[in-house]
């Protein structure tokens, strides 16, 4: 059995597995002053179809975590110091052709079965029975088939993330040519198996492999018609992708250059580009930070709508808690390269457990605060150069106890779906005294 769902019901071993799991990720940077532990033992899961928010202040390692998914952290100066990012690529559900049915749990997508154990659960698939790849380990070539195809990314500033020298059409077409070249050839009614130099040329063109001279040949009469058909096929897909992000007049926008579009339009183009291949996981790295507040709301709405339509899992990175509350199912709070707390979005806001999360929430300006006064967490973020084992929040924490300076708290579950890395909730066994409690302090 190679295809899940095509041979009757899935075996019991195939319980839903997270689409991606970050396990003890460590990314360090070499600097003149020493090794900066930018991400230092981060673990979290992204369940299929959920939106996970990753929040934290600037420099806490959230962007580095996100970029690690696609190995976009430059090495050097970056060092992959350990951990893994397990990813389970999906494909369109055959039973419902992506419309959502019982087999695929209404998601329209099914994960591929593990090639080693054929769904029984083994070491390579971390016992899930699904095809599992470690994004940090797979060869560059395999990673490229995942980038932009199964995992896509939206960047913070669409003005910078779009190439100023290429038209919107050129930039979106690349995604289709790179990942959907066979489908494009089929849509253009070009025989993908056609022999002879002409067949080879057009196939190379469709796979972005053609060189300058080949392009010149393809622009000459006998081959030109075929090239134009291929282009038209790509154009149709580009228009469809743009239309989905509610860009007015996509056929016109296609011929524009990034500088001719507004910030909101550019971000829509980025989103269209990211969702072009219907990815399993969308990484949104502060997608609204560079935009006007009025545009922010609309982009946010769009991401949420597209997410529910495509049932894509989203890793939403932000420093803005109020935004995260509106889009995310679960929230992971990062502080100084570590996870402080993971919880369902509502719980984070109604019942924060980690002192840092509390501080963050208290710092959100609210109408109830006295006018002109802003609440801040006292102290500053620690230096991350060669840190000693201690709670990273020690020194700024109002509940600090001696143990916080001696040991490093690990995230552990407190109640349903809630994990906290704090000794208040998980007193270390051998240090019974000197454990911080909320009770000793006035809240």
């Amino acid at each position, binding site marked *: 059995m190679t295809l899940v769902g095509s041979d009757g019901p899935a075996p019991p071993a195939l319980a839903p597995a997270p689409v991606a799991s970050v396990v003890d990720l460590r990314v360090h940077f070499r600097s003149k002053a020493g090794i900066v532990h930018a991400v230092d033992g981060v673990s979290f899961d992204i369940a299929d179809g959920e939106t996970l928010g990753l929040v934290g202040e600037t420099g806490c390692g959230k962007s580095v975590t996100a970029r690690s998914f696609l190995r*976009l952290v430059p090495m050097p100066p970056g060092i992959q110091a350990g951990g893994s990012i397990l990813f389970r690529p999906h494909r369109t559900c055959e039973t419902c052709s992506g419309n959502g049915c019982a087999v695929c749990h209404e998601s329209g997508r099914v994960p591929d079965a593990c090639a080693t154990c054929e769904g029984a659960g083994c070491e390579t698939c971390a016992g899930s029975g699904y095809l599992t790849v470690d994004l940090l380990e797979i060869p560059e070539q395999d990673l490229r088939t995942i980038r932009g*195809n199964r995992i896509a990314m939206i*960047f913070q500033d669409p003005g910078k*993330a779009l*190439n100023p020298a290429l038209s919107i059409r050129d930039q979106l077409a*690349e*995604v289709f040519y*790179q990942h959907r070249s066979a489908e494009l050839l089929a849509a253009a009614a070009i025989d993908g198996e056609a022999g002879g130099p002409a067949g080879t040329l057009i196939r190379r063109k469709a796979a972005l492999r053609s060189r300058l001279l080949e392009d010149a040949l393809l622009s000459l009469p006998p081959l030109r018609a075929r090239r134009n058909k291929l282009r038209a096929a790509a154009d149709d897909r580009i228009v469809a992708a743009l239309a989905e992000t509610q860009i007015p007049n996509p056929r016109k926008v296609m011929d524009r250059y990034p*500088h*001719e579009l507004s910030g909101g339009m550019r971000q829509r183009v980025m989103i269209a580009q990211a969702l072009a291949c219907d990815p399993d996981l969308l990484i949104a790295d502060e997608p609204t930070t560079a935009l006007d507040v009025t545009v922010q709301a609309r982009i946010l709405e769009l991401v949420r709508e597209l997410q529910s339509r495509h049932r894509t899992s989203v890793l939403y990175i932000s420093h803005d808690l109020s935004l995260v509350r509106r889009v995310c199912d679960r929230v992971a709070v990062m502080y100084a390269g570590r996870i402080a707390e993971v919880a369902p979005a509502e719980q984070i806001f109604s019942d924060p457990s980690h002192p840092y999360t509390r501080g963050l929430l208290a710092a959100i300006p609210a109408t109830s605060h006295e006018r002109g006064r802003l609440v801040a967490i006292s102290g500053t973020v620690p230096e991350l150069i060669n840190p000693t084992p201690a709670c990273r929040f020690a020194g700024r924490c109002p509940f600090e106890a001696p143990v916080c300076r001696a040991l490093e708290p690990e995230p552990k579950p407190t109640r349903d779906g809630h994990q906290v890395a704090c000794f208040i909730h998980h007193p270390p066994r051998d240090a019974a005294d000197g454990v911080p409690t909320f009770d000793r302090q006035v809240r």
Partner: protein
Amino acid sequence: MQIRDYIIRRLMVLPLLVVGVSIIVFALTRIGGSPIGIYLSHEMSQEEVAELEERFHLDDPVPVQYFYWASGVLRGDLGWSGVAAAPVTDVFLPKLAATMELAVSSAIVAVVLGIALGTFAGARRNRLPDHLTRVFSISGAAMPLFWFAILLLIVFWVYLGWFPIGRSDPDLWARIDHPTNLYTVDSLIAGDFGAFRDAVWHLTLPAVTLGYGATAIIARMMRSSLVEELQEDYVDAARAKGLPERLVLRRHARRNALIPTVTVIGLSFGFLLQGSVVAEIIFQWPGLGRWMADSVLRGDQATIMAYVLFTSVLFLVVNLAVDVAYAYLDRRVVLGE
């Protein structure tokens, strides 16, 4: 605005610029001395000098003299070259062809090699290929042209005897017709590969001399702007799309890195023309540069004016080409007009 409209607009301004340039050229050469200086000698009487002045309209006001000259230029009459002992127009074209053959072949090599080297080095920043390219290009930019030329001459002509000097083997030159006066092109038209080989043979040393400096400058510029572009977000975004590194470099980073490089390429064309004077003298290349050097030394004003006017117009055209290339690479230029 479309790029086509942009080019048309720029072309329409070109004649005005040429007129402006010609006035400056005329004024500057006039400051440099009397145009009949080359014909005068101590034995001539006052009357003879006055007669010459009248014949060349030197007794008229300077603006009128300009019109005489300008209308001559328009009719294709650039005056008489004392150095070549022939009308400037007759000598100019063959010599221009020789210089162009040299300058253009150096330019092609410099542009192709410079961009390739710069890309190669920039994509491998601070690794061995980058350091080697740096050594190559800094020595190219720092070495005086005349010294490098003499060095090549001594090593490859005097000692090794691998390459000849001059422009051609006289027998082979006489064997074919010369419709364009570009030896390489003429030999290809004639289908004479022996002559073609001879043409390339003779071209190599002066072209290398001339091209090295320009290659070095272009490679440096390309390398540094590529390094800068590779840090941009759109490069990561291109990688995030799943493009192979080859395409990230070629379709994304290099295209943008070419924008500043194109300016340098335009400027280096001036460097090539300037260098051609030295290269032509050292390698006995019968081009404009050598003729020009002789003319300056002997005060042959008609030739000087023709040469300066020509180079100025050439610069205007190169400048236009650079701007068009710029607009093609960076659409914001067209919009900003």
